């Protein structure tokens, strides 16, 4: 993975010092909250319902064991012994004290990490395919480009105060696993007919209040020109993106307003001035950065390991895990393993300090000391020998990482929701928990098969509910939490935005609604057709008709504590995963 040189170290150290000074000026009153808010957001510090939250950048989701141990240390020393992995491959700590944040940044700097631009109206952490470098369908490893763009975007002086946040995602594989079509800029690394590497560039995708699938602005930008090209996109946006209305400020609105042809014309007019200029990426720089992502020292191994195959035959639980959590690898005899952070009863994406330490140890023991964070809020050991799989499974089981549910209904993508977030209309984590408990039957889940369930507590769509096969959105009606259900959304190459099925439901109705949707699917599916494919084939109507045909019982006990009570504070001790379970 990328390692800092003296310049990276100096920039991060100077940032930590700068933020320490800003915090002390805030605490002394020299900075007003209005002045400080934007500064702290640019450093990933949010003020949530109960406490400050610190979001730490995990560039393109890649972590070393030492970095994961540092997270464990931060969780123990500064938080309530746990952290939360996000849908943008970052980690956040929900219970930090503002006055501790400078010390946390110093700790992070010691392992080449920071919280720069993890929030605010600037270019955010660049996300990437979690199987970059190991996927069988990979055309080009996107990580060197992600790192080069990370450096370009870090403290970019012209783009620190954009109309709104700005997100990049990059994929280098035939199948898009980075959801590039729902980012402000989506980059797909491609090769042209001459075998030269470049980028297909999508612009103006995004979720939130106005979900839009990105539009192609250029089918091939040579890799050397990617900085100058995206810089022109952001420059046009910085000048003309709307600033009068927060909800219309993302680049997608500008692209829609101008039309892609006019937007492209403006971008290319600007690009004329910089194309081929000093910001053109040099072969030397690409080589320097690429060297950090060279393949580790793989052994020469047979394609399949006989003992693993035999163990699968005799142990159904292991076979289930192999089927769901183990992914093919481009190198013979290796596999990538997803450690599930979606165990029933645990908030999706949450990990304790003990689990973090243990994950670091697993990485060292089985996967060259590296881990990845996925945008589905799980962890990946990317380079595991197949002959180690049984042993890894045993170890992962002990740690609560081996739930064989990757890609299944209980692999819920979930935002922090009303338990933590000041923006939320409704709780997400307790709903994910209730759903996990209602459907906690591994045979049933495997029978239902691949399905993306995404739960966002508000329209900001941190859990990408629009691109869930089933999406759940928390809405506020008269001060109460309600949930709107949509179906037919999808990420990946055939990305689509889900359609709302009808009027919203109470917390206690949602599991029954899901059960009905699944019943319609089971009735109509062909063989092993996936839920999303059935929805595409038969349309929304049969689902909608069945869900609303008879009244849906409201299981009030499921909702747990009264929502009204939650708004006035938490009257009891908070367990590690969420204050409100």
């Amino acid at each position, binding site marked *: 993975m990328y390692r800092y*040189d*003296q310049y990276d170290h*100096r*920039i991060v150290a100077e940032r930590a010092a700068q933020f320490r000074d800003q915090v002390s000026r805030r605490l002394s009153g020299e900075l007003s909250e209005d002045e400080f808010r934007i500064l702290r957001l640019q450093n990933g510090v949010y003020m949530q319902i109960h406490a400050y939250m610190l979001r730490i950048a995990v560039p393109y989701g890649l972590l070393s064991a030492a970095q994961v141990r540092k997270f464990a240390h931060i969780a123990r020393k500064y938080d309530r012994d746990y952290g939360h992995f996000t849908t943008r491959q970052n980690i956040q700590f929900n219970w930090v004290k503002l006055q501790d944040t400078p010390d946390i940044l110093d700790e992070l700097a010691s392992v080449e990490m920071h919280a720069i631009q993890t929030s605010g109206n600037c270019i955010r952490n660049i996300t990437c395919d979690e199987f970059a470098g190991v996927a069988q369908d990979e055309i080009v490893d996107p990580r060197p480009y992600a790192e080069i763009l990370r450096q370009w975007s870090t403290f970019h002086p*012209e*783009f*620190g105060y954009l109309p709104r946040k700005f997100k990049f995602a990059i994929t280098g594989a035939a199948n898009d696993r980075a959801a590039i079509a729902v980012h402000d800029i989506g980059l797909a690394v491609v090769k042209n007919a001459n075998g030269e590497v470049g980028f297909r560039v999508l612009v103006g995708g995004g979720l939130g209040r106005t979900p839009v699938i990105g539009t192609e602005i250029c089918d091939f930008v040579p890799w050397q020109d990617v900085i100058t090209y995206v810089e022109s996109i952001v420059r046009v946006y910085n*000048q003309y993106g709307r600033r009068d209305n927060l909800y219309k400020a993302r680049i997608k609105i500008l692209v829609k307003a101008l039309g892609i042809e006019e937007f492209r014309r403006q971008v290319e007019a600007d690009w004329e*001035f910089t194309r081929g200029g000093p910001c053109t990426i040099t072969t030397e720089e690409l080589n320097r950065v690429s060297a950090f992502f060279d393949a580790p020292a793989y052994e020469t191994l047979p394609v399949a390991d006989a003992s693993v195959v035999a163990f699968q035959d005799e142990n159904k639980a292991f076979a289930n895990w192999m089927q769901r959590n183990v992914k093919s690898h481009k190198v013979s005899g290796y596999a990538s393993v997803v450690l599930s952070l979606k165990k029933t009863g645990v908030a999706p994406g949450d990990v304790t300090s003990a689990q973090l330490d243990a994950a670091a140890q697993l990485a060292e023991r089985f996967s060259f000391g590296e881990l990845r964070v996925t945008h589905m809020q799980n962890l990946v050991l990317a380079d595991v020998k197949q002959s180690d799989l049984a042993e890894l499974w045993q170890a992962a089981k002990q740690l609560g990482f081996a739930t064989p549910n990757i890609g299944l209904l209980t692999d819920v993508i979930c935002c922090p929701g009303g338990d933590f977030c000041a923006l939320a209309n409704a709780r997400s984590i307790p709903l994910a928990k209730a759903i996990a408990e209602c459907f906690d039957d591994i045979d049933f889940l495997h029978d239902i098969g691949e399905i993306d369930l995404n739960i966002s507590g508000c329209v900001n769509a941190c859990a990408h509910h629009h691109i869930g096969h089933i999406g759940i959105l928390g809405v506020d009606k008269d001060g109460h939490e309600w949930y709107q259900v949509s179906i037919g959304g999808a990420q990946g190459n055939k990305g689509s935005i889900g359609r709302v099925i009808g009027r919203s439901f109470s917390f206690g109705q949602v599991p029954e609604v899901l059960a009905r949707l699944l019943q319609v699917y089971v009735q109509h599916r062909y063989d092993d057709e996936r839920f999303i494919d059935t929805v595409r084939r038969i349309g929304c109507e049969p689902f909608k008709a069945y869900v609303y045909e008879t009244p849906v019982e409201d299981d009030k006990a499921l909702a747990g504590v009264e929502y009204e009570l939650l708004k006035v504070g938490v009257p009891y001790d908070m367990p590690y995963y969420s204050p409100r379970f």
Partner: protein
Amino acid sequence: MIIKNKAVVADDWTVLRPDYNDNPKQVVVPSGKIIVPFDVWQAQRESLLARTDLGVWFKSCDRPEELQEDIARFSVIAVDFSKFADGRGYTIAYMLRERLGYKGELRAIGDVLRDQLFYLQRVGFDAFAPRADKDINEAVKGLSDFSVTYQASNDEKLPLFRRVHRGVVNE
């Protein structure tokens, strides 16, 4: 007092700020060293051309390229930040320097605060009038928050990877 070339210095320019709904054609431009709003310059250009003691300032929604023809006349151009979080002024400055070839003083005025100065100087500002309620001697420290930068901008014509030999670990 303003910050210029990283020092706090005296300043004898006056920024003319007409009322929001004043007609630019009728705004009276006093004598002396006055920085006039760009729309006033446009509206009264014929009569103001004779003056050699004027500067011009842009609102964040103004288009600097519309000044192209006259740009060489000015030794001071200012960009107003009505709110520090409105980042359009950064691109205006970059355009004035990089695309329109402006070489004179480029001054940030309005909601100008210490914690934005570093970026502001990078995109081409060399003079700053911090908000009146802030200590200018404190604000000047913001210019030296960082000693290294990754990207090219107006201050550094080359990105870091072309400026230095990279890859030396440990410091």
